[in-house]
């Protein structure tokens, strides 16, 4: 009885701190990148609610863009599902890395299943950075606050991109649709220390357009698997050490 209010206050404070920390740069970056997704949805001739639905439930921009782009070239459901699955498979090790940092005897195991939905690149990287300096019981509420702000930014960005793409001159709409490829390109360019990643990016960028010309439906999936596997084999165990250190 006496610990209950104290825990609540603590959780509330951590939640609000998460909210605050996600405002600012993270909020703007998420909003801006989802502007591109919203305009992509409009460009594909879909309704806004489909874009919001995707942002709400998929919550990884790359997977969402892959799905809409492949739909645009008329790919089958199996190809789209496989491509999205491969794009997002890195979520599994990301969750595995984060889980032990959040484990708390007071929190039932099932609660981690809905919580895991908040794990995407931005929140994950911020959590890994912040968790070590935070008491264990504050980590989950912090992540919920941080994730809630990011999610709101994504939904607002999707809606704003959709609205802007319908009202601005067509030439400005082009610019909005350009946001996603450029955003991904710059995120990749920001960190090129891992050799395997550099090979994967380079080979993928070359094979992507070529295999798209050879077969639009399977091209993306094939480029990812072939270029990724080649990069993995070329570098071999070279990245094993840096990978282990990160984890």
């Amino acid at each position, binding site marked *: 009885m006496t610990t209950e209010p104290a825990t609540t206050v603590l959780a509330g404070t951590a939640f609000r701190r998460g909210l605050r920390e996600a405002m600012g740069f993270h909020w703007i970056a998420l909003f801006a990148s989802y502007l591109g997704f919203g305009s992509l949805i409009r460009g594909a001739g879909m309704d806004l609610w489909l874009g919001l*639905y995707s942002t709400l439930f998929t919550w990884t921009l790359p997977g969402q863009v892959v799905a809409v782009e492949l739909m645009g070239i008329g790919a089958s459901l199996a190809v789209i599902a496989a491509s999205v699955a491969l794009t997002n498979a890195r979520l599994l090790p990301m969750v595995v890395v984060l889980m032990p940092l959040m484990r708390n005897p007071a929190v039932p195991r099932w609660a981690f299943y809905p919580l895991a939905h908040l794990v995407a690149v931005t929140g994950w990287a911020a959590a890994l950075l912040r968790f070590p300096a935070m008491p264990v019981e504050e980590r989950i509420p912090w992540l919920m606050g941080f994730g809630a702000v990011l999610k709101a930014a994504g939904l607002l960005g999707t809606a704003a991109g959709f609205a802007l793409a319908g009202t601005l001159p067509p030439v400005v709409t082009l610019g909005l649709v350009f946001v996603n490829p450029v955003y991904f390109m710059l995120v990749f360019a920001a960190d090129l220390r891992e050799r395997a990643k550099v090979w994967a990016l380079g080979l993928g960028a070359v094979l992507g357009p070529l295999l798209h010309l050879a077969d639009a439906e399977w091209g993306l999936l094939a480029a990812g698997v072939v270029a990724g596997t080649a990069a993995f084999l070329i570098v071999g165990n070279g990245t094993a050490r840096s990978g282990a250190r990160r984890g």
Partner: protein
Amino acid sequence: MADGGWIWPFVVLTVAAAVTYAWRGLGVALAGRINPGGALFRWVSCVAYALLAALVARMILLPIGPLAQAPLSARLLGAFLGLAAFRLCRQNLLAGVAAAVAGLIALTAFAG
């Protein structure tokens, strides 16, 4: 979509959300039992990077949808301007994206 209808996009986006969540749920289930730094996950991350790089290159070089109306030179120069601004502004993402978008719009407007 020219054929209208929300059912197909809804089905596709639902499947995309489901396969995406499956990885997160599996991560919770397998936490502590697998090594996230192992060879399998290094391969997985290589494939994800390659697939996204393939998509980015294709979206810039061979776009579908509205972006196809911008000339190739505008798309390439826009991307280059974005990279240059990103480097000059200490890897500031927003500066890079803004420069690329402004460059693409300006170059397309001039070309048209």
